[in-house]
């Protein structure tokens, strides 16, 4: 019944210095096609840096990043987006001065299939009725939860094969967090592979297939999500 997992992303011994400080060291991580993998850990453990390395916003000092069988360690950010890696960054980073609609259109910047883009746009609006209502509003006027939805919808507009989500629940009210995670589950059900960085470890593990625990820039635990949920050390440190 089980099929052989197909890795879409592999990190081999990735080390990154950030602002002169070692942010992550010798990280090995695999995401298989169709999985939701979560990277949990305390603030400053290097979770965002890992995503920034994958999106090619920072250069690793050493190590290799393989995406869909291809070495992308030295690729440009716009190239990896084109090849199918989208990121919804920490702090959402919507373009505050542009409309919701323009934010979404820019999400499809790497695509040229206009009719399909319009269809995806309508699909996002069906999925996020609140964004549809506010489509002509400047994105900066949206609430935090709406901005998070926009950031995710914008990333999805590029039709990614791998979606990187950086702290999607940060600073949001509990009810909105539940909504955001139901969106993540829907994306997964629709076949998007997701690498999720979260501080809310319990919620992340409950919604993931596998998890990695990052501590002070190094991976200390990894395994199936339910196993990590049951692990005493993980429980004590992150699920308390």
């Amino acid at each position, binding site marked *: 019944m089980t099929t052989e997992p197909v890795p879409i992303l592999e990190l081999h011994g990735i080390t990154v210095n950030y602002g002169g400080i070692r942010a992550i060291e010798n990280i090995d991580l695999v995401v298989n096609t169709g999985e939701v993998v979560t990277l949990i850990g305390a603030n400053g453990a290097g979770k965002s840096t890992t995503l920034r390395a994958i999106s090619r*916003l920072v250069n690793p000092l050493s190590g290799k990043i393989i995406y869909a069988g291809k070495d992308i360690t030295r690729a440009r*950010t*716009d190239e990896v*987006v084109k090849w199918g890696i989208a990121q919804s*960054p920490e702090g959402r*980073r919507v*373009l505050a001065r542009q409309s919701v609609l*323009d934010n979404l259109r820019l999400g499809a910047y790497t695509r040229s299939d206009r009719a399909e883009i319009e269809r995806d746009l309508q699909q996002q609006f069906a999925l996020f009725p609140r964004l549809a209502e506010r489509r002509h509003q400047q994105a900066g006027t949206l609430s935090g939860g709406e901005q998070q939805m926009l950031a995710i919808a914008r990333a999805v507009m590029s039709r990614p094969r791998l979606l990187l989500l950086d702290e999607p629940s940060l600073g949001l009210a509990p009810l909105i967090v539940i909504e955001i995670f139901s969106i993540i589950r829907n994306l997964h059900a629709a076949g998007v592979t997701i690498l999720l960085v979260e501080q809310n470890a319990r919620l992340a593990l409950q919604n993931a297939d596998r998890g990695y625990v990052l501590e002070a820039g190094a991976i200390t635990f990894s395994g199936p999500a339910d196993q990590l949920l049951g692990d005493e050390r993980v429980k004590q440190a992150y699920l308390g």
Partner: protein
Amino acid sequence: MTLTQFFQNVLNGLSIGSVYAIFALGYTLVFSILGIINFAHGSVFTLGAYFTYMLTGLAVGFNGILATTRLPFALPFILALLVGSGLAGLVGVLIERLAFRPLRKRGSDRLLSLVSSLGVAVVIVNLIQYLVGAEAYSYRSDPFGLGQPTVNFGTPERPIPVRSVQLVIFAVSVVILIVLTLIINRTRLGKALQAVAEDTVTARLLGINTDRLILFTFFVSGFLGGMAGTLVATSQSITGPYFGIAFGLKGLAVIVLGGLGNIPGAVVGGFVIGLAEAFVPSQYVAYKEAVAFALLFIILLIRPQGLLGRVQVQKV
């Protein structure tokens, strides 16, 4: 002031103001994207005027090492204006590659880019002097082939003559302004530029090749600067290698007046300063240059963010 003078002043003000506007847009485009003033913009203005001069087939003077040389061909003036501005745009691209990008990639302080662009300005000015000398150059008279030197906006009894070249300058500048505004607000390219201006990291995560867009921005900036240089030179002359220095400073006044990095602001600022200068009475014409800066001083006292500038809000 008579009504005639008033109309003349308004038309002359709009004409020079429109050149200030396209010149200042060159500064503003770069500033809005990189947060840096490109101090070499004034010397690109100068270069544009020289390029057009040479492309129309005229020989350079007697002082530089290129003395008396001329191109083996001569372009019609409008074509020379476009090609010359294009060449100025390429100089802009070169400036980005040599003076800005290396510093940016190293994460250097913005102040360093400012100094390096100032260095480029000095190099360009000296290079011009070395190549074609310090003398003044004038285009062929009536470069646009207008036939008549003035157009009468009044009646035969009460004429309101305005120099035709000023009208052409106004028309060309307005066309450029409209095209640029459409590109920025209506096209995918324009939206991408706005994205880079607002947040470079986000723009990259959207799949925008930011380095390429920055190069494009420098091209457009150089094109606008070079075109402004040629347009100013058609109504006066190229006064020498320092032609663009004073103009460059005034361009800074324009963008600060309009609101730094604000595109409509650069246009409004250009027209405000152009009109203000046009109304300086002829006996005080020596103080014309002071008008722009006095105006800047007064407006900044009232609106420190400039006419159309946004108040910077610190986001959490």
